[in-house]
């Protein structure tokens, strides 16, 4: 733990006009599972390719185990990689695909056989060794790609959206397999995904990226509980965090209040902070997700246990407990204050409904959210 396993310092790689990453710094301990998360085009694949050595940074250094690998080619960096397309060699059998790297590196035959056997058993590919990739299902191909990474026996494994070509059901089971494999082999994994659910459930650390820069770097719990910006708040969580304009809750319109749907409570009209209209009610079995509409809020939702009597068009009163409110700067989108640390700045309850006043409308120019609802 004394020294970071992987360390990036101010790494920059940009192309003329668009894309790429700029000023990326992060460090990762051995055995950790890091997800690089972000919308498409945010530079997450570029970052992975920089770590892999498939791209060269224009600026900054990359260290692995204290060694500067910035100028080393991919083959010398002691890592394996699982590609989004799996990059299996179509003319080679499963066994030949898995053993390709070992043969290239002249590993002895008995050693190769042993490691092939292990990798095949570990990934559940037994009996498929002589098949060609074209004779396998998507999930099996994916596991061949995993086995190829496992057999290399390298401490760092990079994965570029390895689940994006699988159907939803398979995705969940392979996700668990990857996590189990990583723990069992003590691998350090860097995992690129655009699916926040994948990143949250798999990782020890998450890097959230936006437009080539790190928006937030932390544990999944940190990202969920304390998003660094409105972007992070809206990207993470399903449904995402609701963002409510400050003056709708009785504070300044320079602030935007964020609240997770599970922290929003129903309240009788005379005690409510907000009254919102039900847009849609999604019955999910154990609970019901109400999508709500309020002129000063974006992504407002409520999770209620079981089935609910609410139908679209109904009006509900909402209460947002002060300790669950996050404050963002409306202009910059950055988080302002964390409620626990600043008890003195607790937000006053919005008494607007009780006073008979209507909530402010979204036509005010200072309001930065791109909400167009009336």
């Amino acid at each position, binding site marked *: 733990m004394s020294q970071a396993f992987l360390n990036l310092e101010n790494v920059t790689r940009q192309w003329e006009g668009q894309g790429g990453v700029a000023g990326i710094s992060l460090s990762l301990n051995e055995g950790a599972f890091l997800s690089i998360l972000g919308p498409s085009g945010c530079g997450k694949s570029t970052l992975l390719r920089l770590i892999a050595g498939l791209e060269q940074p224009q600026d900054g250094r990359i260290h692995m185990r204290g060694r500067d690998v910035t100028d080393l080619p991919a083959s010398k960096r002691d890592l394996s990689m699982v590609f989004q397309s799996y990059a299996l060699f179509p003319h080679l059998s499963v066994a030949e695909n898995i053993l390709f*790297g070992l043969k290239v590196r002249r590993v002895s035959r008995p050693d190769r056989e042993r490691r092939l056997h292990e990798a095949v058993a570990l990934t559940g590919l037994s009996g498929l060794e002589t098949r060609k990739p074209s004779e396998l299902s998507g999930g099996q191909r994916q596991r061949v790609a995993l086995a190829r990474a496992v057999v290399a026996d390298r401490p760092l494994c990079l994965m570029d959206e390895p689940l994006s070509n699988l159907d939803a059901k398979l995705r969940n089971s392979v996700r668990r397999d990857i996590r189990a494999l990583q723990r069992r082999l003590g691998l350090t994994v860097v995992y690129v995904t655009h699916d926040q659910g994948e990143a949250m459930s798999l990782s020890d650390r998450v890097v959230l990226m936006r437009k080539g820069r790190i928006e937030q770097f932390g544990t999944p719990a940190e990202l969920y509980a304390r998003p660094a910006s409105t972007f992070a708040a809206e990207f993470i969580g399903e449904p995402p965090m609701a963002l409510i304009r400050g003056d709708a809750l009785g504070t300044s319109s320079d602030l935007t209040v964020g609240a997770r749907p599970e922290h929003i409570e129903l309240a009788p009209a005379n005690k409510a902070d907000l009254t919102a209209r039900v847009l849609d009610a999604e019955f999910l079995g154990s609970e019901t997700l109400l999508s709500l509409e309020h002129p000063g809020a974006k992504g407002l939702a409520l999770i209620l246990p079981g089935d609910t009597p609410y139908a679209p068009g109904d009006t509900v009163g909402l209460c947002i407990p002060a300790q669950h409110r996050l404050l963002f700067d409306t202009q910059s989108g950055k988080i302002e204050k964390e409620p626990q640390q600043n008890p003195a700045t607790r937000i006053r309850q919005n008494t607007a409904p009780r006073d008979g006043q209507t909530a402010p409308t979204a036509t005010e120019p200072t309001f930065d959210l791109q909400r167009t609802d009336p």
Partner: protein
Amino acid sequence: MSHANTPDRQRRAIHGWLLLSPALIMLSAFALYPSVATLWTSLWSRGTRRRPSEFVGLDGYRQLLDDPTFWKVVSNNLIYAGITIPASMVIALTMALWANSKMPARSFLRTAYFTPTVLPMIAAGNLWLFFYTPSFGILNKIGALFGAEAVNWLGQPDTALWAICMVTIWKEAGFFMIFYLAALQTIPPDLREAAEIEGASRWTYTRRIVLPLLMPTTLFILVNAMINSVKLIDHLFILTKGGPSDSSKLILYYIWENAFAYFDRPAAAAMTVLVLIALGALAAFQFLVLDRRTHYR
């Protein structure tokens, strides 16, 4: 029951034949009939005004096998094929690998490589005639700069066939390169990256991944090159006319000579039949043996 169906079945039969007829007519007129007619002609003697042609069976073939020129031409053609096929394929592959890499002026390079293919063979022949001309041809001019003596490339039996081969390779390599280039572009780039991460050198990647994936293309090009090694003789008319002393004469040219210069149609027909048999056997070998060892995606 069957009685009721008769008009319907007839209509369907007519419909079927109508669909078949374009291909049937074309193939019969231009492939089937000429082949049979050639075989038939080869079994008859050459007719003159005094001795009308008569059925001689395989005599024509026997005479052909006794003809030293025929064997000279066959060996010429084998050398021609043995040089032009591998040389043009290797050069095509090399050019394709090069033209597929990231480099400036890549499209210019590709166009330049492809230009000889666009040129008619007759034009190419005339161009090379200028290169090969003794004393003031470009090759000898360049040679003279280094003090080499003037060589009559096309005019001496030792070099004529090689000079002919050179033109064919120059003409064909660019054409084959296009196929290789197209095949190379279908190989996803992440295969190279995956191999790179595994520590494979560029050479290992080419040998273990690229070449096997190019096998279907290679087979296709091989078939084409073999056909061309028999078929492509236009430049002979311009450059050597098969000479000097038959040193650059190829089978098809000899067939043409027999048929249209010596008017010995049965000899030409017999040779054509032999060529057809040889090519048929080659095609069978390629598709039965090589095909099985080729990976198709």
